């Protein structure tokens, strides 16, 4: 029976892998998560059965167990359901914190309760406690930063670097000590305190923009801690699942950092000193600009039903008409309805966009005029603005500027707006464009030719 349950646990572990695998693709991600959750449920029940069968558990033990389960579940459920979409990352960080905390507690409890702990358990226990505790405070702090409870700016105080080194050394030292002498309570306490402090000092100097990467890294940490807990408790499923998360989390962290053009080392080490400048690409005084990667835009396009392209002078300047037509063709081939909304004065000569799109052999029926387009934006999932600026500038609806009164393309009526241009630079009329700070808008900063090529490649990975 026990062996059977071990096989069940093994199967659950295999399902975790499968679940993660499915989560790599948008179309199967949800199924993957459900599979993983189901496997977790099975694992918990199976463990319950084992506990019940062995019957070494006290009544208080049962009470504690169920109280803990109930408390944790309710808290988790409530938090997960009530959180706003935008606050999810910090919640994940919070869950990660408690996971790391739990992993540390396991080792602590094992060491405390142990009588003659074999030395070789000391090493994983020590690692478990160190990593778990660092993760606990680090993740809490990261969540706090994202939530705005702690300032999102990198917090650096004089001598911070020294304090950091000292705490790190302390943690390391007590960790080695504990590994050697797993029954030494002083070492244990020192390690716990040191690691908790290090979690704080590690995350404190890192800026808010880098938090997602940090959270992902801490997530990989927790995985490792859990695997170590598995060593301590001799539980295979903890080792498998922990190592799985440790490794996949590390890879994921790398991917995330790459996507943000950051290196992990830069983020962590850079944290100790320089302020971070990731946010400097963001808008000036008037509001925040959300910029996205080719992948982000590609997924929006690939899963849209209707896309309206708004070409402008930038498309011509980049001579990107063929890339544009190629992307549109790719999307059309996968059932996305793509049309081009041509503004009467887009470009620099009458009919500029027509000449351009004709060169790329865009069929005439795909071109729609301004009036018609303005009726259709409301039904569009994405308005894809490529190198256009003035012709989409809502400032035209106000008086007192060079484009006042000019009819514009109402791209802001679309469900979402993607703008491809190289910068927040001005168009012909020399005006700021408040479209770029619209919360619906994603800026994709790129030369139109290169950007569209990258986008096409990215879309292909989704629809391919």
């Amino acid at each position, binding site marked *: 029976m026990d062996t059977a349950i071990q096989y069940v646990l093994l199967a659950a572990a295999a399902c975790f892998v499968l679940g993660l695998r499915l989560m790599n693709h948008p179309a199967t991600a949800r199924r993957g998560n459900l599979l993983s959750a189901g496997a977790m449920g099975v694992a918990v029940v199976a463990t319950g059965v084992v506990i019940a069968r062995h019957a070494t558990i006290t009544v208080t033990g049962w009470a504690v167990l169920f109280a803990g389960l109930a408390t944790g579940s309710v808290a988790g459920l409530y938090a997960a359901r009530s959180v706003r979409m935008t606050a999810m990352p910090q919640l994940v960080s919070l869950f990660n914190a408690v996971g790391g905390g739990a992993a540390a507690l396991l080792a602590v409890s094992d060491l405390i309760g142990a009588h003659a702990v074999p030395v070789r358990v000391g090493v994983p226990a020590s690692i478990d406690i160190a990593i778990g505790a660092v993760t606990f405070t680090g993740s809490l702090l990261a969540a706090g930063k994202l939530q705005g409870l702690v300032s999102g700016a990198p917090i650096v105080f004089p001598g911070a670097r020294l304090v950091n080194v000292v705490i790190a050394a302390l943690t390391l030292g007590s960790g080695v000590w504990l590994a050697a002498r797993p029954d030494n309570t002083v070492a244990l306490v020192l390690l716990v305190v040191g690691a908790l402090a290090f979690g704080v000092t590690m995350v404190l100097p890192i800026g808010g923009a880098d938090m997602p990467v940090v959270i992902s890294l801490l997530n990989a940490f927790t995985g490792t801690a859990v695997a170590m807990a598995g060593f301590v408790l001799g539980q295979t499923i903890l080792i498998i699942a922990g190592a799985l998360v440790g490794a996949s989390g590390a890879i994921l962290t790398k991917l995330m950092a790459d996507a943000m053009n950051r290196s992990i080392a830069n983020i962590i080490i850079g944290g100790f000193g320089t302020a971070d400048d990731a946010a400097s690409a963001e808008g000036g005084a008037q509001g925040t600009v959300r910029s996205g990667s080719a992948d982000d835009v590609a997924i929006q396009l690939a899963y849209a039903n209707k896309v309206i392209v708004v070409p402008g002078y930038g498309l*011509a300047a980049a001579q990107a008409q063929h890339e544009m037509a190629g992307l549109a063709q790719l999307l059309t081939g996968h059932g996305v309805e793509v049309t081009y909304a041509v503004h009467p004065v887009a470009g*620099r*000569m009458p009919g500029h966009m027509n000449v351009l799109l*004709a060169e790329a052999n865009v069929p005439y029926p795909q071109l729609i005029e301004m009036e018609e387009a303005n009726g259709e934006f409301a039904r569009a999932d994405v308005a894809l603005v490529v190198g256009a600026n003035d012709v989409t500038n809502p400032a035209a609806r106000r008086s007192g500027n060079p484009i006042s009164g000019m009819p514009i393309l109402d791209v802001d009526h679309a469900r979402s707006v993607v703008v491809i241009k190289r910068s927040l630079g001005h168009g012909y009329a020399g005006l700021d464009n408040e479209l770029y700070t619209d919360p619906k808008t994603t800026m994709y900063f790129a030369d139109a030719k290169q950007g569209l090529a990258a986008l096409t490649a990215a879309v292909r990975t989704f629809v391919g």
Partner: protein
Amino acid sequence: MSDLTVGVVREETPGERRVALVPGAVSRLPTGVVVQSGAGAGAWFDDDAYAQAGARLASRAEVLATADVIVCVHPPEDALRAGQALVGLLQPQRRPDAVAAWAAAGVTAISLDRLPRTLSRAQAMDALTSQASVAGYKAALVAATAYGGFFPLLTTAAGTIRPAGVLVLGTGVAGLQAIGTARRLGAVVSAYDVRPQARGEVESLGARFVDLPGAASGSGDGGYARALTEEEGRAQQAALAEHIARADVVITTAQVPGGRPPVLVTEDTVKLMRAGAVVVDLAAGPLGGNVAGSVPDTTVVTDNGVTVIGAGNLPATMAPAASTAYSRNITAVLAHLVRDGALSLDLTDEITSALVVTHDGVTHDGGAR
């Protein structure tokens, strides 16, 4: 609401086939429309079409007598009465006498060529742009038709035909359109303009911008070029010569506001060109053109076999399209000026103040240009 009557007269200028208002635009006007019988014939719009669109047909005299606003391409020579308005491409700086007459007669003269063109909301009224657009397209066609070779590259059993080299000088609206059209036909196009921002616009059409190391660059006001000094002009001519000599087809469109068009292709330069080469001069007019020796509305073949086409009024040769676009401009101007069924000229308005040439006996210089 149609207290106001808009009158359309037949254009009298020789060779002019356009009409200021096409039947399709009649219903877009919130006013009554009276049209001189046969006014649209040159552009293939017959009287029936006007009648069907809701216009009243009348004799020229009757139109001039009854209309509150006369719309035209070129201003009619006829005397107008006080309070009457005249809307068209009046070219006031070339007609000081007519302007004086309108002022004296109390005519409100509104000239579309005074529009502040860089103003985005004025673009629908921009007749210079719409007509230049037609001219540029047609210039490329005229050049291709006159040229004895192919524009595109063709690989055939009877040998490979090299593509034509087309050089466009002056890349305003007409020049850009000529570039686009010549490129469509497969020619290898290069272009030059004196305004520095022209480079990007030329390249945005896939053509090559010609660098003239020695030549001056000059932007003026309102998006226009400035007139070059005589010395600058000569330097430019010299620098252009070798490029022109290499070209199979040259299309020139350079203008400076108010002044006479700059000479870009001198007689000597024409002599350097290959036999069979074609030059189309869109600037050719009474004040001269961009090409020395070009004669308006005339095709001249030089001794060395170069065909020089003076093509100052190409929009007239595409009367239907040019008139349709022009009508749109006219209706946009009227929509801007007509309030509650009457012409109301708000001279504090940027656009209106620029457009009005004479009003209530006063002559306005329209600021710029």
